């Protein structure tokens, strides 16, 4: 049964009524959109800590929000909060301190940081070698002067701040996390558990160790100079992604509920697909089958076919492997039509915001629909002859976009695609 507020499978249609965003381009979706479509890069030299001895010395950091000594948990919470507040304000849903639905959050995985370990080691002042038993000896004293480490602290604090309902879910599906958060919200509304949900992806965890970890997997670009040219998805000379920070929040709401309260509909989340890959911990199946299945499932869930997609928001990390496999995937799913479907990578400007990326890029996809303008893939100077795609090279352009798909692929075989559209008539 299809009615005005139900989809062709009889499920409640899920609308987006609020969008909030923070990236290295700035705070707020307006500034982000202006710069993104202006082809401006947020990738800069790292100022937060000395980069001596590191192979990669650039990142897309949220320098506008960072304050001296802010640990990743606090900074991630801060960008999540800013994005959430912007989204809720735009949506006009609920009341101050009460969001009428659950929170689905994709935070960075938190750990005790080096800054903490070093300070604890100083406090312990071991006579010879410093080990964990020394740190444990002073842990309580240290935590009484700082906040004790708690793994789910960001979700808990946000749930308290926004007054979301029920148990806040923090999730991780690696680089697809932000998309998974949205998906969980859509599913909950479709189940009829709630009329609204707040989905946030946030990651502001740039530290020497986070950089080194990805460096050791040879995942990062080392073309540090100039920073803004390092991220070059789909180019022949691409050499890795640029680690970045950011957050995006979406207020998801049943179309029925949104219309009943006269909310402005920013877009529709028509469907999603996910399919895990068992090939390798960091690599995609060489046949691309899982990412192909992910996109096909998303189209099927939305009740549409490849011919209905007007734009692809690529995962487009700028690693040799991802962009090759994503090309194989979209070429298979969309066939001959792929030549006519523009596909661009936001990461060319904002880098890879990791657990936030799926949410940030869904937000940009919704802005693409709203503004009928395609953000470019910048730094596209040396096309890869093996990748024949319209990547919206270097300059944004206007286009008729009724429906778009956003891809997120992550380590651990995580794949999620989201289909978004304009409000149905």
């Amino acid at each position, binding site marked *: 049964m299809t009615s005005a507020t139900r989809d062709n499978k009889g499920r409640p249609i899920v609308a987006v009524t609020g969008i909030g965003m923070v990236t290295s381009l700035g705070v707020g979706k307006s500034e982000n959109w202006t710069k993104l479509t202006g082809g401006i890069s947020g990738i800069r030299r790292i100022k937060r800590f*000395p980069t001596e001895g590191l192979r990669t010395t650039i990142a897309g950091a949220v320098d506008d929000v960072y304050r001296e000594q802010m640990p990743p948990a606090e900074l991630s919470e801060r960008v999540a909060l800013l994005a959430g507040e912007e989204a809720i304000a735009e949506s006009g849903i609920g009341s101050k301190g009460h969001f009428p639905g659950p929170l689905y959050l994709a935070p960075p995985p938190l750990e005790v940081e080096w800054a903490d370990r070093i300070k604890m080691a100083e406090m312990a002042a071991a006579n010879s070698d410093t080990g964990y038993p020394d740190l*444990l000896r002073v842990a309580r004293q240290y935590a009484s002067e700082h906040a004790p480490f708690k793994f789910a602290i960001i979700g808990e604090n946000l749930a308290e701040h926004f007054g979301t309902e029920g148990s806040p879910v923090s999730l991780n599906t690696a680089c697809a996390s932000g998309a998974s958060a949205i998906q969980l919200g859509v599913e909950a509304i479709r189940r009829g*558990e709630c009329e609204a949900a707040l989905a946030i992806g946030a990651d502001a965890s740039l530290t020497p160790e986070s950089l080194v970890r990805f460096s050791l997997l040879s995942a990062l670009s080392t073309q540090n100079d100039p920073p803004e040219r390092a991220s070059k998805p789909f180019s022949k000379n691409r050499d890795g992604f640029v680690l970045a920070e950011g957050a995006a929040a979406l207020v998801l709401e049943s179309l029925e509920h949104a219309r009943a309260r006269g909310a402005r509909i920013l877009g529709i989340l028509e469907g999603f697909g996910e399919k895990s890959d068992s090939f390798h911990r960091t690599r995609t199946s060489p046949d691309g089958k899982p990412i192909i299945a992910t996109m096909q499932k998303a189209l099927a869930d939305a009740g549409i076919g490849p011919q209905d997609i007007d734009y692809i928001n690529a995962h487009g990390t700028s690693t040799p492997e991802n962009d090759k496999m994503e090309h194989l995937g979209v070429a298979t799913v969309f066939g001959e039509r792929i030549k006519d479907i523009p596909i661009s990578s936001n990461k060319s400007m904002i880098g890879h915001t990791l657990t936030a990326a799926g949410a940030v890029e869904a937000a940009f996809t919704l802005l693409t629909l709203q503004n009928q303008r395609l953000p470019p893939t910048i730094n596209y100077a040396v096309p890869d002859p093996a990748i024949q795609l319209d990547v919206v090279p270097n300059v944004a352009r206007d286009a008729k976009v009724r429906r778009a798909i956003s891809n997120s692929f992550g380590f651990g075989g995580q794949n999620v695609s989201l289909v978004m559209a304009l409000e149905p008539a």
Partner: protein
Amino acid sequence: MTERREVWITGVGIVSCLGEGIEATWRHLERGDPPPYDDKSFAPYIVHPLAPLNFDKQIPKKSDQRQMELWQRIGVYAAGLALGDAGIAGKPELLDSTDMIVAAAGGERDVAADSAILTGMRKVAERAPFLNERLMSDLRPTLFLAQLPNLLAGNISIVHGVVGSSRTFLGEESAGIDAVRIAQARIAAGQSELTLVGGSYHATRWDLLLVFEQTGMALKDTFAPVWDRGSHGGVAFGNIGAFLVLESSDHARSRGARPRARIAAVRADRNRRQPGEIEATLRREWDAVAANVDPAHAAVISGASGAEPATSAERTVLKEIGLPVRNTGTYIGHGVEAQFLANLGIACAAIEHDKLFAPAGSGDFGASPSGLSQVVVTGVGNWRGEGLALIERVD
């Protein structure tokens, strides 16, 4: 989507200090023997070790084992047991569409590397470049893969071929409760037919004790049952892997799978943990299911951790509820994200054996009802989150 379908547990996989598999676990609980614990290796902290396992049985490739740290091996092992128990292990036609929700903590650190860096740092003037240099040379790329929370799920996909979908929930006890809650809700609403849900906890490690010692929560010096650890409480962490296969009853019937039990309800919520709030949330959750519970044939399996004030607050509410109570933490330790999953598995065994296991400590009370057909499983987080589930016999 108002139609709600029945959700069965068709597979249980559990490993802990009590051994491998739900039957070995149950035999120990039934005897009520004192649990194995280790008060030497991490003295003064008390932890529950893992019973010896031959990881080759569930993770045949050594190359796979090398790519994992212990928390992942424990989880992959328990997941394999659950898939085997449900009769879907090695069946790609089913595993291809099997969804997965895993509850995980952060990954493990290389304690030796961390210690060496901290030791070396004492002698250098410029710390930041020293840290950079040592991280570049000392961190192992494979360790990073063991630190990514979603790489337990990733390894389950690789080793067991579960590739429908894969989601990892983060953050202590609530992650396990929410994993079950959402897996159950998805199946009930027709969003999934078959879901592997579980968690894994590697307790015997210094980096983890460092987290919990910050709030003084880890149990020290003297072992005692969960209920009897004094006014400040204490958590004895345990190595636990626990996975369940949840399935729509129709799907299970169509392939001839037997139900171990039905999940009738899962509730989860949070509060600010002001005085009285834990009790209020638990009461509300109990009230939501109480009408469907037959007190003559029901009992509580508690996930009390030993942390205070959570353990005392739960005890207060359990006394009010009045059903017979048994806690598992005294026997298997506290496996944080994995605890709720383990307790659901143990609840299945209780229903199948038609009785409760032996009491341990002053908060366990009541005789085992005859004809045990319903178990309420509680999960009160050590610092946040309260949940409960209602498990029922399928007649």
